């Protein structure tokens, strides 16, 4: 370990500068619109003010803008927990099915253009869940329709009546999708053309009526299959089935070789777009049901946020005053260490958003962070009280300080480990909201141990060094 306080000091200063850069606000644009009198000319100045603190990162190729990742309760949005109905999937294929469902959902959400969605899966003994967080989306209905529909497309035709081969291929009539019997007849069978054969689905508008329609473009294989189906069903009805319901049952007038089909139906532009998106993303391998859903409007969170941040800053100031009053010069050092601690922790939150393990800040998470500021001084107090005691016992200042740090370390370690244990438990057992709090608390505790021990000690040693510093320099 680096023993020389001077080296440590410079490392800490360097770290602080980096951290400051991460935390600084970005470039701001100053704009002035006014009229110059007499000349009566309009002045329109737009100057970019401030500096880009990330310029030193450019050579590294990073074009990062550091911001906090806000939780749903601060930003507003929808969170839905789905349960995947695995009853038709064999046990060993279930994990795969869940992963497949997750990627289909992600594709659908991306196609629909939701910013920064979060889709997670959770498995616990035969309970397969998908948790979807959609920041900024407040129309639950739309979200559920988009995500929850299985969107399984199939094409059905009339089966050649009563031949043994046909019957074995046919699903039993009870498994017929709704509307088959009315459209096709008593005996129907599914063809081998399904949603998997779709190349592209898009929304078109009927040139005559202006109504929205969904156009299906098949892949080359699909086009072949479609051509075969239409060829053998000329003048008969072919049913287009979506999710076990007949949506279209046209009579085939001629063989279609172009590989295109159109579903007319009763679409609104919105529902047509939804269906096209679902078909493009692919069918969900399993049906989903809703276990819980939350829709939070953004105003609720942002008011609380302002107030809580204000309270946090107030608390910060109170602590600094408190420390300086109680411990004098040592208190000032501790306050500086506290500032570094705050900046460092905030920077970690910001930087983490670049990694896949981004830390989401919820309101309770921010409360947890403020709490950890209060606890960060704890360690310093333990050290200083211990130091005072050693001074009372007659030791010299430098030695009292060293003893203060080393003797207090055991207490600090033990008590912070207790908090870390509870944070871990919270993280394991909690839902998203609680997880955020636990993570923030744990990081706060770890960084506060670092700041109290290493940062404070370095500053204190540097200032009060005296004997201990001389001894170390002689050794090195």
């Amino acid at each position: 370990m680096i023993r020389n306080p001077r080296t440590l000091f410079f490392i800490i200063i360097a770290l602080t500068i980096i951290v400051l850069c991460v935390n600084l606000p970005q470039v701001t644009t100053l704009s002035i619109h006014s009229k110059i009198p007499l000349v009566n000319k309009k002045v329109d100045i737009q100057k970019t003010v401030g500096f880009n603190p990330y310029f030193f990162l450019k050579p590294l190729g990073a074009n990062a803008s550091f911001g906090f990742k806000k939780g749903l309760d601060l930003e507003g949005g929808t969170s839905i927990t789905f349960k995947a109905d695995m009853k038709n999937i064999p046990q060993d294929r279930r994990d795969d099915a869940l992963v497949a469902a997750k990627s289909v959902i992600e594709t659908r959400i991306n196609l629909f253009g939701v910013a920064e969605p979060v889709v997670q899966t959770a498995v616990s003994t035969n309970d397969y869940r998908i948790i979807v967080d959609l920041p900024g989306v407040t129309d639950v209905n739309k979200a559920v329709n988009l995500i929850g529909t299985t969107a399984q497309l199939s094409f059905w035709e009339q089966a050649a009546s009563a031949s043994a081969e046909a019957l074995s291929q046919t699903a039993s009539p009870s498994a017929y999708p709704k509307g088959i019997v009315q459209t096709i007849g008593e005996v129907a069978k599914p063809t081998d053309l399904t949603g998997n054969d779709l190349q592209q689905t898009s929304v078109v508008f009927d040139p005559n009526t202006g109504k929205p329609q969904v156009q299906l473009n098949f892949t080359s294989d699909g086009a072949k299959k479609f051509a075969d189906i239409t060829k053998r069903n000329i003048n008969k009805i072919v049913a287009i089935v979506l999710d076990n319901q007949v949506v279209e049952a046209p009579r085939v007038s001629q063989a279609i070789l172009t590989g295109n089909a159109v579903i007319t139906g009763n679409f609104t532009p919105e529902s047509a777009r939804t269906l096209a998106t679902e078909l493009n993303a692919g069918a969900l391998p399993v049906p989903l049901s809703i276990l819980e859903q939350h829709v939070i409007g953004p105003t609720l969170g942002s008011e609380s946020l302002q107030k809580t941040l204000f309270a946090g800053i107030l608390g910060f100031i109170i602590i600094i005053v408190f420390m300086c009053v109680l411990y004098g010069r040592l208190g000032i050092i501790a306050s500086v260490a506290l500032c570094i601690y705050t900046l460092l922790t905030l920077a970690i939150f910001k930087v983490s958003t670049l990694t896949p393990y981004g830390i989401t800040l919820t309101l309770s998470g921010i409360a947890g962070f403020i709490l950890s500021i209060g606890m960060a001084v704890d360690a310093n107090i333990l050290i200083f009280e211990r130091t005072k005691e050693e001074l009372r016992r007659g030791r010299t200042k430098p030695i009292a300080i060293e003893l203060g740090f080393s003797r207090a370390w055991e207490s600090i370690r033990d008590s912070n480990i207790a908090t870390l244990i509870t944070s871990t438990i919270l993280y394991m057992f909690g839902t998203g909201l609680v997880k955020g709090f636990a993570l923030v608390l744990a990081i706060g505790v770890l960084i506060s141990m670092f700041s109290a021990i290493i940062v404070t000690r370095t500053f204190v040693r540097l200032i009060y060094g005296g004997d201990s510093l001389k001894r170390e320099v002689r050794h090195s």
Partner: protein
Amino acid sequence: MNIIGKKYWYFAISLFVLVPGLIALFLFGLNRSIDFSGGSRITLTFKSRIFKETTKTIQKELTKEQVKDVSLQASGNTVIVRSSPITEAQHATLLQDLHKDFGAFREDAFETIGPIIGSETTINALKAIVVASILIILYIAWSFRKVPRPASSVRFGVCAILALVHDVLVVVGIFAILGHFFRIEVDSLFVTALLTVIGFSVHDTIVVFDRIRENLRRMGGMPFDQVVNASILQTLDRSLNTSLTVLLVLLAMLLFGGESIRWFIIALLIGIVSGTYSSIFNASPLLVLWHELSLKRKKNI
């Protein structure tokens, strides 16, 4: 100052605070939010204050949709509707009807939690508290394993846990009373507060136990209760100051902070005050009590 000598007084104070809470807990239980019981919750903010007619109209619309178990809570311009789970269709119709009745208003939040998730959250919460407590006893027992006689590491662990249980019960008891008389709800954030309090209570207790351990090494000859008393007095400053910083921050958040985490902060405040109290006036005196009882048992053999 003789703290150990007056330990029975301090136990009495603890009981005085605990018993009403425990009675309330047994009689009324906790007022569980939908996080635990399942159900729906809609938060609506209107342009003007809520009056009785407003809530009556809302109630009427809900009954029209055949929504069950409805309870309304109004404060200022906001009304919170709780009920058994409602479907999206019911929700949409409800909003339409309310817009017809009241014109413009804002829906701040709409949450539905199915019963499965509800009971799951409850079980997880209880599991979390139990597991955390056990892990902490084990950690303390391990960390204090080299403590000299007459104290054994197990005793340290158990007394710390008793202090911890005391704190949890104080908070839970008070919220049982608040839940019954003021309709304050207990949600998963409350459980978070409890677990934080657990971590913090132990934090405090360890500060004192640490000193006791050190003094036992140094003042081995003196009677146990005197060693413990001296330790408490020596660490009084430390304990109070460390708790004070956290309490000051929490107070700032309580007075100036946001509405939605208000009860979370209150739970933390109560818990940490109780934690500090129990570390000084419960945990260590319990150690001494145990010691005295084991001495009596040895004498009687």
